[in-house]
């Protein structure tokens, strides 16, 4: 049974501290949810656990089954059993979805061994069907031209095939309509088992209607400020976050004021970007 331990985690970006001492333990078989308003560090936590190079960990530790995660490269973390379903999955033109997933599955095999093509196609087809995705999806370029909902489903598709022991789903509900949310929820719920620890990051309780959480945490100012059982969700749903802020004497819960990120990614037009069109 996997266990992910996050201890007194501090992390910064551009010399600004975003995570200010996060403590959290997730075991196989458990489902945790982190809620909280925008800009409180929820997504940063997810990115830091996975090892996004943008962030620097300044203090604390992350252990997966006792192994030091912070010493691992991003791919090593993945192969050790971590999975991050991203809020904004990158688009990779020219690389087909199926090629990518197959390569990712092979990366988990013993050196020199590959997943059998037949097995791969069967599993992929089954997963595509289960998520009610378009049949042409495996042949399309990775996330390129995918709608918001397709991208999110594609994250769950990868999770299904890669079978992680700890999965973090970062705002997997954003951009999904009710029907899609239901499908994603059912698929994630179907994956629940003693060998999977889940961490759901969300603004809204509606995701938690479909995926039942055992523990609910509220994040503010780069820390987990409150934890409880499912009744916490109901209260937040009815009263919002103000009562927590009041209770804890927090004025502004945010650590980051979200700003538009600007980067040149393949497929965008550099000229337009330069001209700020």
């Amino acid at each position, binding site marked *: 049974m996997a266990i992910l331990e996050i201890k007194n985690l501090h992390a910064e970006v551009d010399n600004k501290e975003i995570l200010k001492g996060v403590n959290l333990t997730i075991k196989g078989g458990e489902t945790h949810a982190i809620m909280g308003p925008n800009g409180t560090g929820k997504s940063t936590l997810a990115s830091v656990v*996975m*090892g*996004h*190079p*943008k962030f620097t960990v300044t203090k604390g530790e992350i252990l997966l089954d006792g192994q030091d995660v912070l010493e691992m*490269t*991003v*791919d090593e*973390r*993945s*192969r050790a059993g971590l*999975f*991050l379903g*991203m809020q*904004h*999955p*990158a*688009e*990779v*033109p*020219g*690389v087909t979805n199926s*090629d*990518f*997933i197959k*390569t*990712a599955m092979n*990366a*988990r095999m013993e*050196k020199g061994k590959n997943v059998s093509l037949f097995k791969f196609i069967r599993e992929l087809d089954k997963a595509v069907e289960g998520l009610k995705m378009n049949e042409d999806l495996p042949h399309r*370029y*990775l996330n390129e031209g995918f709608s918001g909902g397709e991208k999110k489903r594609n994250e769950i598709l*990868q999770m299904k095939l*890669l079978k992680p022991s700890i999965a973090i789903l970062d705002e997997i509900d954003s951009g999904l309509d009710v029907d899609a949310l239901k499908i994603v929820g059912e698929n994630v719920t179907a994956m629940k088992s003693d060998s999977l620890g889940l961490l759901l990051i969300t603004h809204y309780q509606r995701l938690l209607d479909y995926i039942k959480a055992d523990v609910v945490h509220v994040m503010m100012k780069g820390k987990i400020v409150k934890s409880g059982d499912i009744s916490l969700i109901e209260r937040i749903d009815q009263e919002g976050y103000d009562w927590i802020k009041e209770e804890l004497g927090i004025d502004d819960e945010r650590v980051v004021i979200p700003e538009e990120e600007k*980067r*040149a*990614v*393949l*497929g*965008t*037009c*550099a*000229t337009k970007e330069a001209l700020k069109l």
Partner: protein
Amino acid sequence: MSEKTKQDIGNIIGDYKYGFKTDSKSILDTGKGLTEEVVRYISKVKNEPQWMLDFRLKSYEIFKSKPNPTWGPDLSEIDFDQITYFIRSSEKSESDWDEVPEEIKDTFDKLGIPEAEQKFLAGVSTQFESEVVYHSTIKELEDQGVIFTDTDTALREYPELFKEYFSKVVPPRDNKYAALNSAVWSGGSFIYVPKGVKVEKPLQSYFRINSEQMGQFERTLIIVDEGASVNYVEGCTAPIYTKHSLHAAIVEIFVKKGGHCRYSTVQNWANNIINLVTKRTLVEEDGHMEWIDGNIGSKINMKYPACILKGDRAKGTTISIAFAGEGMNQDTGAKMIHIGKDTTSKIISKSISARGGRVNYRGMIRHDKKAIGAKSNVECDTIILDDISVSDTLPYNIVKNNSAQVQHEATVSKVSEEQLFYLMSRGLTEEQATEMIIMGFIEPFAKELPMEYAVELNQLIKLEMEGSIG
């Protein structure tokens, strides 16, 4: 990105697997340097008609009078006195592979040419140094009246057809290296596809430079008659020497009314080759010319395949990739000249520079006064893999009528951190992830190549990166 990855990517060009040389004795060569005597000699040993000798001599005068072009890479290092302009390695062009001299056969065997022929080609021509040493066409094509031979033979056997088209779209005056080629040309492919004949399988030529400081000046002439179509594939390699060799070819193509020609090159010259090639097509009404142009090797490469879209609704397409590694300068692009009404053109250029290489896109789009309703679309994407590599995009757009539509889109980027993170978060190593992003980047090009060439191209890239995985 790690240093190692950067280096590995740089090695795509650095580690050159065709760098072996063959110990082949020439039957005759002209020695180093270029004089009027050398020009006369080449014409004489080829038993050429008087008009060709006159043409060569006139071209030689033009070559001498023209300075090196100064608008692109520095060509001043070319020492014309140190180059051997003509080497004959075999008595004649053979049509039976067994008859090809052993050393040369060995070279092409290593390059996998005979194997490729058996698999998927309708015809093969292989050139070693200055002349074609092996040639074969399937009988079916010959029965349909398709001519696929080397250019020297064509001059002898089809003098009228030859004279009608030769040098008509790239005259010697065009540029210094067109003049040089016109003076000393030897070998190359000649293709004629009669009216309405569609050649399904590709025809292929393979060009090999074997000697140091050799000049290869082949001349290719392709005529696609009305409603006909052909798919021609060309590959090039050379051994690695410390001193450079020069490759200055001319390719002239005529696509008649409703005809279609696709010309695919995967040029994988060694890093000591200076490659200066003039490629141009004249496209008539409703014709379509496609240049699929891969530039992986060479020290300096200047190549801008052109389409003159003369007929109404003629269409031109260029899809190209260029890799530049250490000490390499890839100055490539495309030209589209719109003359006819409703002509359309499309250019997709993909460039990658690494380890201090320079890769430039240099292109021209011209819409003449009469080209009413013409449209052009240009897309240039570049990936620069480190801080010491360079890339520039130099588009020239000339529009002389107000109905023209010209679109130009250019992107320059590094391998995106978000893409790397995403792929690595699924368990791919940095090397695998980078490789996958690069392969995806060149996919629009690779998918246009015949299967064997696409596999070769992918291998070329993957092999070099494999050493770093695991």
